[in-house]
Structures are given as structure tokens and as C-alpha cells.
């Protein structure tokens, strides 16, 4: 594999890791947000 092959592989792996982490983070943030609003919503209903 030529040197540009290795460079592509290295940058590709790094990009995959960083983008992958970003999406995982976004997903977890969405789920936490949903769980939070559910709890807050429920909390609200009980108080009124």
C-alpha cells in the first residue's frame, strides 16, 4: 500500500472515531433530553 494509502487510512480512522463519537454524543443527548422532559412533564402534572 503506497504512502498516500496509509495517510488515507490514518485520517479515515481518525475521522470515523471523531464523527462516530459526535453522533453517539448527539444520540445520548437526545435520549437524556427526552427522559428529562418526561420526568419534568410528569412532575408538573402531579403538582397542579
Amino acid at each position, binding site marked *: 500500500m503506497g504512502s498516500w494509502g496509509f*495517510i488515507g487510512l*490514518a485520517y479515515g480512522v481518525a475521522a470515523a472515531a471523531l464523527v462516530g463519537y459526535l453522533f453517539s454524543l448527539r444520540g445520548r*443527548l437526545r435520549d*437524556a433530553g427526552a427522559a428529562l422532559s418526561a420526568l419534568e412533564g410528569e412532575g408538573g402534572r402531579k403538582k397542579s
Partner: protein
Amino acid sequence: MGPTRVGRTLGALAGLCVAVGLYLGLVAAPPDATQGEVQRIMYLHVPSILTAYAAFTATFVASALYLWRRDARADAVAVSSAEVGVVFTGIALATGSIWGKSTWGVWWTWDARLTLTAILFTIYVGYLMLRAFAEEPQAAARYGAVLAILGFFDIPLNHLAVQWWRTLHQPSSLIRPGGPSIDPALLVPLLVNLAGLLLLCGYYVVERTRLEQMRQRAMALRLMRGRRG
């Protein structure tokens, strides 16, 4: 808690800086005299290990703060920068190994810097597992903080041990006490890429901290609901 203004600006800046760094590293910078084109992997490998060190230093500071003042925010930052630090250490390992394959023909050499990166990776993966296994969040935060402090004191000793143990690779040019000894043409892309990855790391830590705080808030709400239930 939506994405904060700080988070968004950090993210944008990081994107810009990484783009510039990519251009400089892959296009503008001259190929290395001895290694040729493949030396460009350095613009990714060295900045990612330095960013990981920065993230783990933040974990150390936040952990010490947590133990001192028991401030939940410090704990959130500690676990967040540890997790992001592990991601960057993983990248450093992968790129280091690929660089090793291209220059020495082997995926893994017990070269000083690669070995240190591997040790760092195992210590902080252990940190994340310890936090996951501890049932009770306060215990997870406390144990994690202690481990982060142990890790912080351990790293310089690891450096010493591994440097003496063996150094195939040229001694890490950037962190050498004498300061960077490589010619400016290579230095500028290196520093730009470093700035890019540091900003990106900052962005990830800010977002991950926000996630941790949302989880903390959800736990508090479940608690409140328990009280009124």
C-alpha cells in the same frame, strides 16, 4: 438545557481550525526529507496524544476539586474529559500504529511513545469501567476521582520508565525538554492541527458535561418523584 452559546462557538471554531490544519498538513506542508509523504500522519498522531494529555489533566484538576468541595459540576467535567480523552488516546494509538506500519513495516513496535499511549489508554478505560461498575453515583465519583489522581502521578513515572526501557523511534521531537527541534515548515501545520484538536476536544467536553448534568438532574427528579410518590 439546549446547547449553550459556548458549545456552539467552540464547535464552529474547532471545525474551522481542523479544516485549516487538514489543508496545511495534507497539502501545503512539504513532504519529509527522509520519510516522504507518510510523515504527514504526524500532524494527526502527535496533536491527538497531546490533546489526550490535556483532557486527562482536566480530569485530574476536576477530580481534585470534586474531592475537595464535592461539587457535582466538577465530577461531571471529570468524567466527561476522561471519556473524550480516551477517544483521542484511541486515535493516537491507531494513527501511531498505522504510521509504524508504513515506516517500519510492523503494526506494533514497543516504541516509547506508542507504549506510553497504550498504558494511558488502559488506565483511563479502567477509570470509565470503575465508574460504570460502582453502583452508587457518589461512590463512582469518589472512586473515579481517586483513580484519576493516581493516574496523574503515575504518568510521569511511566514516561521515565518507558523512555529508559526502550526508544526505537526518534525521541518525541515535540515534548523534548529542549523544545520543538523540527523546522518551522513542519511546525506550523503541527500547531494548527493541535489547536484544531484541542478546540474539538473542548467542544466534546462541553457537550458531554451537559449530558452528564442532564443525567444528574434526571436522577434528582426521580428522587423528588420518589418523595412525593
